[in-house]
């Protein structure tokens, strides 16, 4: 079966972003960009399904600016067989991305779509669930274990307070949590091979999808700063301060 893996190009997780002084957004000019960490886990899982003989082909998809091609090359260096970029300079919100992905799913007919549970820039945690809704498919979010056999997927999910296991009818949508797997490092030979793999480029117009943003960002501001704290010399002083100054114990 085919597996589709959407990936997103985001500000690297180690970068501490700064808000622009005119409050229109965060400054991402000249900042290191990488594949969203949850998407790396998704590509790794799809690649492992292929190595187990469950998946026959893994297709990576990204929606966004032209530079997202680099992210797709990384996905192919991990193990994706080919890639598609839906190129646009419009700011894409999760509903628009879900609609673009639905168009690709309609074209490619995968049995499984594996996404990251959230992107670390907008922290929305919506796209996978929205895609499942648009397709009328089953969903298992925050997956920490995936087993596919026949036409069902058995997925263990991380929930508040523990774990739960669901059985999904395929085709299905799965979103990855941190502990699903440890993504492999890409090797130089695989990076070279990935350069030769097929990468198709579409536009939202090609797919007939309206990507106009539905939400308007009025302002982006710095979070309120905490007032500077103090360093205490010993445990006794700490207890004294918590009791008499902060009055929290």
């Amino acid at each position, binding site marked *: 079966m085919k597996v589709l893996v959407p990936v997103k190009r985001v*500000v690297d*997780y*180690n970068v*501490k*972003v700064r*808000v622009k002084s005119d409050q229109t957004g*965060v400054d991402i000019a000249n900042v290191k960009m990488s594949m969203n960490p*949850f998407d790396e886990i998704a590509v790794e899982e799809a690649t492992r399904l292929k190595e187990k003989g469950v998946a026959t082909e893994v297709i990576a998809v990204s929606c966004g600016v032209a530079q997202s091609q680099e992210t797709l090359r990384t996905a192919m260096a991990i193990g994706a067989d080919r890639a598609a970029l839906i190129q646009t300079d419009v700011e894409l*919100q*999760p*509903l628009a991305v879900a609609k673009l992905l639905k168009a690709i799913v309609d074209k490619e007919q995968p049995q499984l779509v594996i996404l990251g549970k959230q992107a*670390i820039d907008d*922290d929305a*945690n*919506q796209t*996978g*669930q*929205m895609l*499942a*809704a648009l397709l*009328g*498919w*089953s*969903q*298992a*979010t*925050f997956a920490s274990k995936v087993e596919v056999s026949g036409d069902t997927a058995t997925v263990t*999910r991380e*929930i*508040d*307070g*523990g*774990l*739960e*296991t*669901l*059985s*999904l009818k395929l085709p*299905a949508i799965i979103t990855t949590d*941190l*502990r699903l797997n440890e993504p492999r490092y890409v090797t130089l030979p695989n990076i070279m091979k990935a350069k030769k793999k097929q990468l198709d480029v579409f536009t939202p117009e090609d797919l007939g999808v309206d990507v106009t943003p*539905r939400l*308007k*960002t*009025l302002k*982006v*501001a*710095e*979070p309120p700063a*905490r*007032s500077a*704290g103090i*360093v205490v010399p*010993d*445990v006794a002083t*700490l*207890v004294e*301060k918590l009791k008499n100054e902060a009055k*929290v*114990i």
Partner: protein
Amino acid sequence: MTILVIAEHDNAQLKGATLNTVAAAQKIGGDVHILVAGSGAQAVADQAAKAAGVSKVLLADAPYLAEGLAENVADQVLAVAKDYSHILFASTASGKNIAPRVAALLDVAQISDIIAVESADTFQRPIYAGNAIATVQSADAVKVLTVRTTAFDALSAEGGSAAVETLTAAADAGLSSFVGREVAKSDRPELAGAAVVVSGGRGLGSAENFKMLEPLADKLGAALGASRAAVDAGYAPNDWQVGQTGKIVAPQLYVAIGISGAIQHLAGMKDSKVIVAINKDAEAPIFGVADYGLVADLFQAVPELVELL
């Protein structure tokens, strides 16, 4: 304007997160209704009817609604959605799972994890691991929102007297089924709602050493938390993780022990009222947000702290 809040529950008990979500609904203004979708969940509906600020409770009861499967609960919400201007979920594992499915079925955008209500269509939410706060306006007819529960004080569970109306349950979607659940039993307060949280990081060194936080948590009546490093190393269970990708907490007192304070961890706890950090590295970023910092070896400081409390 009528607002629908989707109840969090386990078919016996209404979860506290629902009351925080009702508080956010009241800030938007208008009548607040609660939907309880479950199986044998009459008791939950009765509790919801008693909550302050709730004017009506809708109860949908069917065996296939028992486990909160996203496909079935989303269809149930959709069946009543046309009567509402806003549909609110708590930003918990369950709310985050279902809300976007509802939004897409209604063809509206969803706003995740709101921390403030500016008006009926404008909300604040954190982005980039809490390093920026975006003010977002929705032009959609129905606003689907998830609510960061720590940002809104829960309304009282008593004092209301709403009527409970029983709905005909929407049909079973039949797309997925529940297999099993492993929920860790704990006598400690629930992490997300605790007044005091004691969290450990990689500095603890092992799962055995992590246990030394237990007497401290007992003395403080605290919930135990952990950094991602501690969870990944197997010192603590997954659901203890505090951070961008784990739980978001905002207790009165947060004690970070052996935690360096990576951006992703700070995203989950920097709205705590008082932060205490114990770390032997004076340069650790955690001291940048701590109200009280102690540069010391935690293996000496923690037992001493337990002694003095």
